[in-house]
């Protein structure tokens, strides 16, 4: 079981991700709706893993990823984004994200990615 921070600007997507992860036995320690909030929540909760959307208002997921990894280079982050942001996904992997999930997704895909990253 892992303590997970879920970051997405859509409340609906936070719920879908949280439900899938909770069903898989994980604990949701916090949620954030933009990149700035994600960094604050990360430093507040020190989660085992963070799921991070890319396209968000105020500060996007790439900004949050840089800040999170700057404060904790060992942070485990999975990008979770809609199709069409391949260059940003590649940039995220280059920056240090562990995996990425393309929306729309099945719950099993999320749980598989989390298991692999935590292994």
């Amino acid at each position, binding site marked *: 079981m892992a303590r997970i921070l879920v970051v997405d600007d*859509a*409340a*609906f997507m936070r*719920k879908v991700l949280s439900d899938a992860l909770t069903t898989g036995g994980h604990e949701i320690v916090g949620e954030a709706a933009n990149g700035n909030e994600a960094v604050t929540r990360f430093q507040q909760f020190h989660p085992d893993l963070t799921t991070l959307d890319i396209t968000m*208002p105020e500060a996007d997921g790439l900004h949050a990823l840089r800040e999170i990894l700057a404060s904790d280079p060992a942070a485990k982050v999975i990008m979770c*984004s809609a*199709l*069409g942001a*391949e260059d940003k996904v590649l940039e995220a992997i280059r920056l240090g994200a562990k995996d990425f999930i393309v929306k*729309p997704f099945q719950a099993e895909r999320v749980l598989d990615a989390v298991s692999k990253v935590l292994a």
Partner: protein
Amino acid sequence: MSTEEALVTLGETTADAALGVLASLCPEGVEKGNVGVVQPGASPLQSLAYPAIATDVAYTDGVSGGNVFTMTRLGVRRLAAAMMGAELPSEDSDTELDEMETSALGEAMNQMMAAGAAALTKALGYPVDISVPTTRVLQSESDAEGAYPQSPHATRVSFTVLGESCRLIQLVPNAFVVRMGRALDNEITEQDDRGGEHNADPGLSSKLRRTHVRVAAELGRAQVRLKRLAAPLPGEVIELNRTAHDPIDLCVNGQRFATGELLLIDPNDWAVRIDHVLDVNPADYLTPIGGT
């Protein structure tokens, strides 16, 4: 390639991508209609059923335009229920949409338009990026008017999602029309090169059709004494014989063949929209002025 053909292809590219996402969110509950080009001056939001729930996503990186997806309130409730694996409501209730229903629509639009942007990036050979979605309720025709910025071109396509009518409107930037026209022209050239035929101009042989010519856009002319050009001073201004609103000339080998409107696209690239084509035999373009 005509502007209308480029617009229809752009509309189809985005609509097919949106269809793929909608079909994965609510399998067997989606049908797509034909893409139509909205005539200049007409509103793409005309004759909607009100209240309409409208979600828009803008193109970013300096390109104006975007997409608007409209649904009935019952349509949104059904889409949200399908996305959450819940039972579909059979009829609408008088209550406003709750946060989760509105957010589900925004997320569906985000995924549809991200897929559309990916398809356009591939088709145009040019990175297309999108903003986060914004959702609003349009209560009447007057609400819809002025809700979105004017766009030089627009397409619309109807969908039926879980039994409810929806509409996808693409507010198309000039840059996309120019690039799509170029991409389609290249496609035709490749077909020609593979031995295919098209009916662009029966007066030209296929060999001539593959000939590349340099097109010049002429803004205007000026007549000055030679002595002024013998020692021109930096900063000196030469007035042209055209105003900013006059059409410009398009020429091949000095031969004027069309007039058009100068456009700024992308946002720093010049382009020309052809307004009027002169009656010139294309073969004449190959004879330079003053040549034999």
